[in-house]
């Protein structure tokens, strides 16, 4: 298990934060090692030290391969009683309209064979247009928006489709290293057809200049997999005088087989 001396989960202010250049060098070193490998890795590295908080929170043993039992080959069920009609429009949850670029984010939840995951729960949360979460521990100096909470949920349709109306979140600073900024993103929580397909991830916006500087984005070493977490601008989703549109399909892992 590699460790970095002096790195705690939340660096106290006395700990000197690494420079962006040092983080970039670590990112490049790990990426270089990956390019030389052959096995595509579809998920982030758990022990990815450019993301400092992973140092003490990543398991050191390999994940242990086992056959799924029945409960793990099924998934929790959600229904219309679980989701309210306005839960998927993050712009109508308060008296006024939130500040920011109005956007619609839509797409489908699919399995690796391209089959839709129908009637399943999708949850999203995000910072406001200024890059501030309403979470009490977010002390970023940007303003809160009294008309924006930044949480939504919906059930996928028969074709696996979901859609959220919201505002484009701003980038925000964090204390991973000196001058660390997260690219704008929306957090997504997804359920598949099996327990093992449970996924929490982040959707990014195309062309974000912060991608190269962000260890969380870069923790996905495979370039083609990394492209999977970036939405596409879709003019067909944009609506006259209403909002711009982004399309993002989410593909959950294989339905597990029993290999006995």
């Amino acid at each position: 298990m590699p460790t970095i001396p002096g790195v705690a989960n939340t660096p106290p202010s006395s700990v000197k934060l690494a420079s962006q250049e040092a983080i970039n060098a670590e990112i490049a070193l790990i990426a270089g090692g990956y390019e030389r490998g052959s096995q595509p890795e579809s998920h982030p590295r758990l022990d990815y030290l450019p993301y400092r908080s992973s140092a003490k929170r990543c398991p050191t043993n390999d994940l242990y391969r086992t056959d799924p039992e029945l409960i793990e080959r099924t998934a929790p069920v959600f229904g219309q009683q679980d989701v309210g009609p306005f839960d998927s429009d993050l712009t109508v949850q308060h008296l006024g309209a939130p500040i920011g670029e109005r956007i619609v984010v839509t797409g489908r939840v699919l399995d690796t064979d391209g089959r839709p995951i129908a009637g399943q729960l999708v949850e999203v949360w995000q910072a406001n247009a200024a890059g501030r979460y309403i979470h009490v521990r977010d002390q970023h100096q940007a303003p809160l928006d009294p008309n924006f909470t930044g949480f939504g949920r919906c059930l996928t349709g028969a074709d696996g489709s979901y859609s959220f109306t919201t505002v484009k979140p701003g980038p925000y600073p964090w204390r991973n290293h000196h001058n660390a900024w997260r690219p704008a993103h929306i957090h997504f929580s997804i359920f598949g057809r099996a327990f093992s397909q449970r996924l929490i991830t982040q959707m990014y916006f195309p062309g974000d200049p912060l991608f190269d500087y962000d260890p969380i984005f870069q923790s996905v070493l495979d370039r083609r997999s990394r492209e999977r977490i970036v939405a596409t601008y879709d003019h067909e989703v944009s609506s006259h005088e209403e909002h711009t549109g982004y399309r993002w399909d989410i593909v959950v892992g294989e339905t597990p087989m029993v290999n006995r």
Partner: protein
Amino acid sequence: MIETPGQTIGPFFGFALPYAGDSQLVPPGHPDAVQFSGLVLDGDGVAVPDALIEIWQPDAEGSVAARAGSLRRDGFTFTGWGRAATDNSGRYSFSTLRPGGEAPFIAVTVFARGLLHRLFTRAYLPGYPPDGLLSSLPENRRRTLVALEEGASLTFDIKLQGADETVFLRFDNSSD
């Protein structure tokens, strides 16, 4: 199709994912209710106050409930699914039923700031013959998957890293 990679849940899910009744699969006053709880600890044994634990389990007869209503619980339907954020001391707690079956366990998912991708594990009830997974593990690792039972409480600590690191699982054939 290429799978969508996971990303960390981050530190700011607390206003979004937890909800009223999230951790109460049955009301705590239910005659068969058990408390399923434990600590989430990092590699230094320090509590993880910003983890989210989800559970998915069969009912007392060992059947998969497959019923809706986990987000707006009616107090009567056992859905088998629940969610609990850890508190400032790193503790999560559910009110649920003992799962049924031959080697009964509660399936557990772990999310946390600092964890780039979710982890899966199992919390077995003690006192049953070991199943295939438990039998295949050396004793020191096996015991990380077995809850401690005392009266109506099941205690299951989750150690993300270190000497008593919990066994975390994968179910596919990929390199993930």
